[in-house]
């Protein structure tokens, strides 16, 4: 399969996380991932978005890029546009560790891109033959 790329821009709002999850599942299915791996990928996309959204500031938009590279799915999720104050609770911010555990366990590799303590992007990949 060629190195196809899908890019998706959605408003940085909780109601659009499902759009990203479902797109990731459809793309991963096209790449030949099995059902368990697709569940892991869907879950990881949601958790990466939660990490970017549940902060003291959040972006106006999310850019989500899926790429098929060497039999791996590469997913980059980044905040775009103006970053505005959010009304997220301290408890929500505390949950970031749960997201990190889930991402670390479900993907082969995860990279967090922060700037002044703010999570600007999450880049991750998973191979079809991965052990996770």
């Amino acid at each position, binding site marked *: 399969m060629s190195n196809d790329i899908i890019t998706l821009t959605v408003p940085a709002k*909780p*109601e659009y*996380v*499902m759009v990203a999850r479902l797109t990731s599942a459809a793309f991963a299915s096209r790449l030949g991932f099995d059902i*368990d791996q697709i*569940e892991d990928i869907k*879950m990881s996309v*949601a*958790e990466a*978005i*939660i990490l970017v*959204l*549940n902060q003291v500031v959040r972006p106006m938009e999310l850019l989500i890029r899926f790429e098929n590279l060497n039999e791996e799915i590469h997913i980059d999720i980044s905040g775009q546009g103006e970053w505005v104050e959010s009304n997220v609770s301290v*408890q*929500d911010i*505390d*949950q970031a560790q*749960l*997201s990190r*555990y*889930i991402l670390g*366990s*479900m993907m082969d590799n995860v990279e967090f891109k922060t700037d002044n303590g703010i999570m600007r992007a999450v880049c991750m990949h998973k191979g079809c033959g991965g052990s996770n």
Partner: protein
Amino acid sequence: MVVLKEKFKSETNTWCISLDGEIDIYNAPELKERLHKLIEQHPGNIILNCENLTYIDSTGLGVLISALRRVKEYDGQITIKNLKPYIHKIFVITGLDKIFTIEVQEV
């Protein structure tokens, strides 16, 4: 979308709650409010039937942790029943299987 159906059993002082559908960052705040209201109404033990729960993210787990904190204030318990194996996996990854009493759905 998550559907919560609840019934209070006074003889055992227990809320039997079924959680159906998906718990995500969108509907987690509403679920949190509803669970906290039930706990206020009758501070009892909680049995969560997750037979028809198909997805939960970290914000949903946060709601359950928050409910557990409230319930522990009066030495109550939360038991989670009939978790699907792939959702149980999330509880194991996050270590939450150690703080909730969990029964996994038979495959």
